[in-house]
């Protein structure tokens, strides 16, 4: 059992925290040790983000913090007071799956599905970053998401499809193929 340090209450053993999660304002009081991943899963019942390695090595816990993809297992929830968090649960709009989600289904880009929420959130960020211009680039910039079932070829195909549907960036001109 971890030791409870009563003397730390002067600094607030339980820290108040406001997060905007998938567009909804949430107020929490958390032990400072709680990671963002545990706060989402255990505190807010958002179990989409998965705990694979809990060490930053697999990407299953990927969420967006203020639009940037990060490993929610590697950061303390209290460090994100006031932040906007998007998890896989927040990607669909009015019950319509995100194009990346549709493409994962279409391309059968999963087997057991454990890594999938992290892959999908990471892919959404990758597209926003403009890092999906070739298969090689997709592989490199998805390297933070491991898949033990090795669905990699189908994951790359799914992302490629969304990238080409979105078309090349406007500066390169021309109609989308």
């Amino acid at each position, binding site marked *: 059992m971890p030791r409870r340090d009563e003397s730390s209450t002067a600094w607030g053993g339980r820290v108040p925290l406001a997060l905007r999660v998938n567009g909804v304002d949430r107020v929490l009081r958390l*032990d*400072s040790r709680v990671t963002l991943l545990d706060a989402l899963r255990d505190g807010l019942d958002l179990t989409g983000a998965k705990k694979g390695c809990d060490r930053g090595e697999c990407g299953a816990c990927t969420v967006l913090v203020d639009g940037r993809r990060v490993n929610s297992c590697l950061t303390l929830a209290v460090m994100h007071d006031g932040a906007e968090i998007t998890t896989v649960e927040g990607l669909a709009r009015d019950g319509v799956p995100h194009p990346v989600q549709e493409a994962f289904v279409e391309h059968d880009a999963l087997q057991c599905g454990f890594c999938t929420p992290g892959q999908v959130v990471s892919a959404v960020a990758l597209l926003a970053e403009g890092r999906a211009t070739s298969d090689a680039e997709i*592989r490199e910039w998805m390297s933070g998401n491991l898949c033990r079932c090795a669905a990699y070829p189908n994951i790359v195909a799914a992302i490629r499809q969304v990238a080409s549907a979105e078309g090349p960036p406007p500066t390169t001109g021309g109609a989308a193929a």
Partner: protein
Amino acid sequence: MHPFAYARPDDLGTAVAAVAGDPAATFIAGGTELVNWMKDGIARPALVVDLGGLPLSAIDETPEGGLRIGALARMRMVAEDAAVRARYPVLAEALEAGASPQIRNAATVGGNLLQRTRCPYFRETSFPCNKRELGAGCAARTGPHHLHAVFGGSDACIAVHPSDLAVALLALDATVLLRGPASDRRVPIDGFYLLPGETPERETVLRHGEAIIAVELPAARFAARSRYRKIRERASFAFALVSVAAAVDLGDDGRVREARIALGSVAPKPWRARAAEAALVGRMLDAEAAAAAGRAAVAGAAPLPDTAYKVTLVERAVARTLAEIGGWA
């Protein structure tokens, strides 16, 4: 994880005073190292002082024509910066070769320099490790040690420093800017890290409570012609087995005026290969000179049975990186 108090001051003086005044206090920036250490029982701070609220992430021009990179700049920000990419390509390449996109979105420059070894016996607390517990012994001496040092190790410790960023900064003659409770210091990156000797728990000259506030890159003629080459066990998202940061300044006659060659993951600190630099100066940058630099880079290597391969790898990686710079690879 042991309980800790958490504070997020909004000025640097308060943050520095809070850590300096409490031996059990520590800073946190991105958290990508510290959170793992706390989970694994490698660090047990009683007070964690978050630097995240401080305005220390800008990348600015220095009056001398160099760049000053704030300690809280994220790895991704620095790698994407147009001035960094144009004037210090080795830095952008080293950052993009490190960790994963998610980690680079969170990890800071200051935290990256202070990351600790990935020696598996250090990270897994059931093994004896002098770095965690002085006098306990070194499990790498008796167990498999193919990830370990070929330069600069000691009887006490043969772990390597894993940062890619630090290797690039060494090749760029960078300076680390520190803020202590009483005063500021400027430490050349070459003098920032310590060799283990008999005190493997001491890794840098940073004093308790001192914060890294920035890293400064001088305007150097060799910086623009620079490359980073990282050799890993898989194509991406892995620490280096061996890495090379090289920078070369060529005179109008095509001869090397000045060179910098730094090696990663081969020593307890980023390792400057001065003999390799000397082997280049005054010569045309060609395959023969590159091979000579590779040979000079490994002179004095002291491999153990499992690390002999690193010597060959370094020799070839140095030559290959120079070939890329010279444009014939």
